[in-house]
Every structure is written in structure tokens, then in C-alpha cells.
């Protein structure tokens, strides 16, 4: 998201300030390099878990301070209304294109959609076109097979309960007295204590299933996809691939499954376990459907 914002700001000659947890700056050093190359100021946030949650708080503080001259941009479906809705609408291009492409290729809608969820922007962007209810009961039934994979240690539904963080009421990892828990996930994009509020709604309505995979499973999926298909997904998307590996054998041969690869492996830094200390500069291409430019 920071890179996309930095690109837009560079194109229109706007000032761009990106807040990022210092932990994430290390995990995504190449991404930081790219944003700075594009002329953005990248400010490290050293508070709390030094990840997305604390970066959002700091960006919101800057925004309230400079509200008369500044527009706040958030990459995921988080924050106060109307941000989750706006971001969903922007991301819904993923689902609209997927729908068109799969209908062109197969003449029918998929039986299952799988995406990873941090805040959940790529997932809601993919799902939105399939759960709008326009196709009635048939579509709703289908939508129940939407699977979501998040990091084990940041699995919000398993360990969370409704709460309010940064202007949103949603499932939240928190202690008994409402203090927000620190999370840990191998991938920066999944390392957040809450989930987009619309995902909480879909989950409570039983219209999508949410589960988690372990860091190890995600890394194994990353390896497998790289080896078998020559595609290097972002670590976030590797979670979706890991869940796909579990789900696919339970489906019939003629059923259709779409997995969303929402990010590219290039975002990993040399600290990533799969980079072995060397630069990662291979860009993954979309697999079964479109890739998001989300993060």
C-alpha cells in the first residue's frame, strides 16, 4: 500500500508520508527502499509491537494534526467508517475481474474462493463480487465455501471477541480488560490484532469460513508454489496457498477453486526465511485469478 501511495504521490507531485512499524521496516526493507526511491518519507514507529497496528495509530495522530491539508490513506479494510467500505470498493476490482475471467474460461462461477486475511482487503475485494446477493440462494450457498487463511498466532476469530480498535468494532485479539494483544505472524501483512469489520459480519452470518495455518505450513506452501509453478507469492498469500493445499483434495475434480495471490515475493526483505540472505527480486504473476496491488 505504501508503494502504491508513494507512486501516486510521485505522479501528482504530492507530499507522501508513510508510517511503518520498525519491525515491518526490517521485514520489508526492499519495500521501504522503493517508497523512498519514489520520494516518500518513511517514518518508523517504535511503539507497541512495532507493526501495522502501531503504524496506523501514528498515522491517525498525524492525520488529526494535519487534517486540513492531509488525506489519510489506509491499505486495508480497517479504521473508522467509511474507510472499510471505501477500501472494499477500491479492491472489488479483484473480484469483478475474477468473475469475468472465470466465466469466460469455464462458463460458471467457482465453487470456492480462498484468500489470506490480515485486515482483509484482498479477501473482501475478491469476495465482494460473489456475495452481493444478486444471484440469490445459489450464490449464497456458494459463498459459504470462501475460505480465509491467516497466521496462526494472529488468528482473530479463534482467540478474539468483538471490540473497538482505531474506530472500528470487529473481532479483536484482546485481554480480559480490553487491552489489545500483541500479535506475531511470519508475514507483516497478517500481523494485526483485528480484522476488517465486514469479515466479522460475513463470519457471523456464516457466509465465509475463517481458519488459520501455521507459519511452517505457509513457508512449505511458498516453497511448493515456487518449485511447481515458478511463482513466488508474498508470505501473506502463501497462507492462502497453504489452505488451498488442504482444501483442494476434499473437492471434486470438476469443481472450481480460485486462490488469490495478493502480493509479490519482492516485498520480502533479506531477513525473510526463504531469501537466505540474498535479494529477492522475482515478481510473481497472478495464478488462477488477478493479483491485487493492495500492499
Amino acid at each position: 500500500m505504501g508503494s502504491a501511495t508513494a507512486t501516486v504521490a510521485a505522479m501528482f507531485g504530492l507530499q507522501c508520508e508513510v508510517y511503518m512499524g520498525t519491525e515491518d521496516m526490517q521485514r520489508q526493507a526492499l519495500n521501504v527502499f522503493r517508497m523512498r526511491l519514489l520520494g516518500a518519507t518513511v517514518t518508523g514507529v517504535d511503539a507497541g509491537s512495532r507493526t501495522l497496528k502501531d503504524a496506523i495509530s501514528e498515522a491517525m495522530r498525524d492525520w488529526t494534526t494535519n487534517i486540513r491539508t492531509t488525506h489519510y490513506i489506509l491499505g486495508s479494510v480497517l479504521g473508522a467508517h467509511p474507510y472499510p467500505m471505501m477500501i472494499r470498493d477500491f479492491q472489488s476490482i479483484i473480484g469483478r475481474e475474477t468473475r469475468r475471467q472465470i466465466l469466460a474460461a469455464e462458463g460458471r462461477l467457482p465453487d470456492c474462493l480462498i484468500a489470506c486475511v490480515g485486515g482483509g482487503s484482498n479477501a473482501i475485494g475478491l469476495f465482494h463480487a460473489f456475495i452481493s446477493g444478486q444471484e440469490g440462494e445459489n450464490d449464497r450457498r456458494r459463498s459459504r465455501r470462501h475460505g480465509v487463511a491467516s497466521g496462526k498466532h494472529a488468528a482473530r476469530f479463534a482467540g478474539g471477541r468483538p471490540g473497538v480498535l482505531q474506530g472500528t468494532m470487529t473481532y479483536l485479539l484482546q485481554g480480559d480488560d480490553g487491552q489489545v494483544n500483541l500479535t506475531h505472524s511470519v508475514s507483516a501483512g497478517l500481523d494485526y490484532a483485528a480484522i476488517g469489520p465486514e469479515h466479522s459480519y460475513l463470519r457471523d452470518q456464516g457466509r465465509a469460513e475463517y481458519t488459520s495455518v501455521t507459519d511452517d505450513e505457509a513457508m512449505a506452501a511458498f516453497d511448493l508454489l515456487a518449485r511447481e509453478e515458478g511463482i513466488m507469492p508474498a508470505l501473506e498469500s502463501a497462507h492462502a496457498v497453504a489452505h488451498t493445499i488442504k482444501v483442494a483434495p476434499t473437492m471434486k475434480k470438476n469443481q472450481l477453486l480460485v486462490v488469490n495471490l495478493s502480493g509479490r515475493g519482492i516485498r520480502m526483505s533479506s531477513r525473510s526465511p526463504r531469501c537466505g540472505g540474498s535479494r529477492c527480486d522475482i515478481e510473481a504473476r497472478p495464478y488462477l485469478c488477478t493479483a491485487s496491488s493492495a500492499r
Partner: protein
Amino acid sequence: MISKLDRTFAQLRQRGEKALIAYVMAGDPSLQETEQLVVELEQAGADIIELGVPFSDPIADGPVIQQAAERALRSGTSLRTIISMVARLRVRTQIPLVLMAYYNSIHAFGPERFCQEAAQAGVDGLIMPDMPPDEAGPLKGPAAAAGLPLIFLLAPTSTAERRTFVARQSQGFVYYVSLTGITGAKLLNLADVAKNVEKIRKVTHLPVAVGFGVATPEDAAKVAAIADGVIVGSAIVKQIEAHRQKPADGEACGRICPLIENCHASGSA
């Protein structure tokens, strides 16, 4: 119903004085010390005490209060222990005590149970920086039943429509945030504050208290000339921390109380 806040502001008005509202983070560095501090702040001249409820993600607060919240959380402070402290304090003082809490603390506690227990312990009002009145539905019924005033906030960017709406929803007083930004910022624009306080007065009979960015006795005096109350937060919290770092400099309240006394003297003048 006449609340204790209503009575305090009415008495001050009769005496031609303005309310000095002192903010401290409850549990920074410990609840025992906060308890003692409240008593000493009252003796030094504070009219109302605002007790911060520490939260892990205080989006409206600057570094001074963020760090105070971290210290308070480390000392094991929770909404439950703060309510118990208020009950203990009520044996010693009747000064109005207002809680400033991010909503998730209250949500986790249970809005209904919170309103009952807080009011029963002697809490006189509730300020929530992340809860606009539009969204406060789940809290309004229980708060009204318990007689706990909900104090809402207005900002320099609030529109005329918003001013009317928020001022009508607020109880006890209206909290005017003096600047666009976070607590402890140094951006006080008195002309702008004066203009906006006047606009708020046109839509409500409630007292208007001004907070955020009031750092010195001089600031407090200038704001008191404009509004019905002045809220001093980060400046006090900073003094508490400075005292903790160098306890040899005086007693618990040694370095904070002069600030309050100065603010109070300036404000009443």
C-alpha cells in the same frame, strides 16, 4: 437530574471562577500514588479531576500520555481497579472525578455493569475520545439509568450542524479540543479557541471546558478568560514522571502542585 458536575460549575460561576480540571493517568506509576495525588491536587486548587484509564492504543494521545498509559498498564491498572480506587477516594474527598477512557475498556467491562459500578463508586462523568455521540447508543441508556453524565467532544473542524448535535448530547460540560491534533501538542491558537467557544455557547447552556495543548499557567489563564473550564493534562503527567525520575526534589505532589496553584491563581484572576 442535577449532577455533581452541574453543581460544581454553578458554584464556580457564582464565585466568578473558572474550573481547573486536572488530568492524571490512573495508575501512573501506581494507583496508591494516584489516590494520594488526587487529594493533593484538590488541596492545590483543582476543581475537577480527570482520571485517564490506560489503554494499549491511545490514538488521541501524544507521547507523554502514551508513555503514562504504558507505565500504568505495567503497574497492573485496569478499569476495575480504578473504580475501586474511586470508591476508596470517596472516603477522603468529594471532588468531581471524571474518567477519560477509550471505549474498548468499557466495552470489555460491559457498558451496563460499568455505568452502575462507576456511578456507585462515585465517578461523576465519562469522556471517551474515540466515541462520538452518534455511536454511543449502547451506553446512553445505562448511563442515564445510573445518573452518569456522558461528556462529548467538539473540535476546531466541527461544523455548525455538528456543534449543535454534540452540544445537545453532552452532559455536565462540553469538551472543546483546542486544536487539530493530539494531547500535549503545542499548537494553541487562542483567537481560534475564543471564536469556537463562542459558537458553542450559542447552541448550549452547558459549560464549555477547553483541553489539549494547555501547557503552562499562562496558557491556562488565557483559556480561562475564554471558557468555563481549563483542562491541563500532559503538563501534569510530565511533572509526575519528572518527579518519579528524581524523587529527591520533593514530595509526591511537590512539583505538580505549584503548577496547579499557578494555573488556579491565573484562572481565577
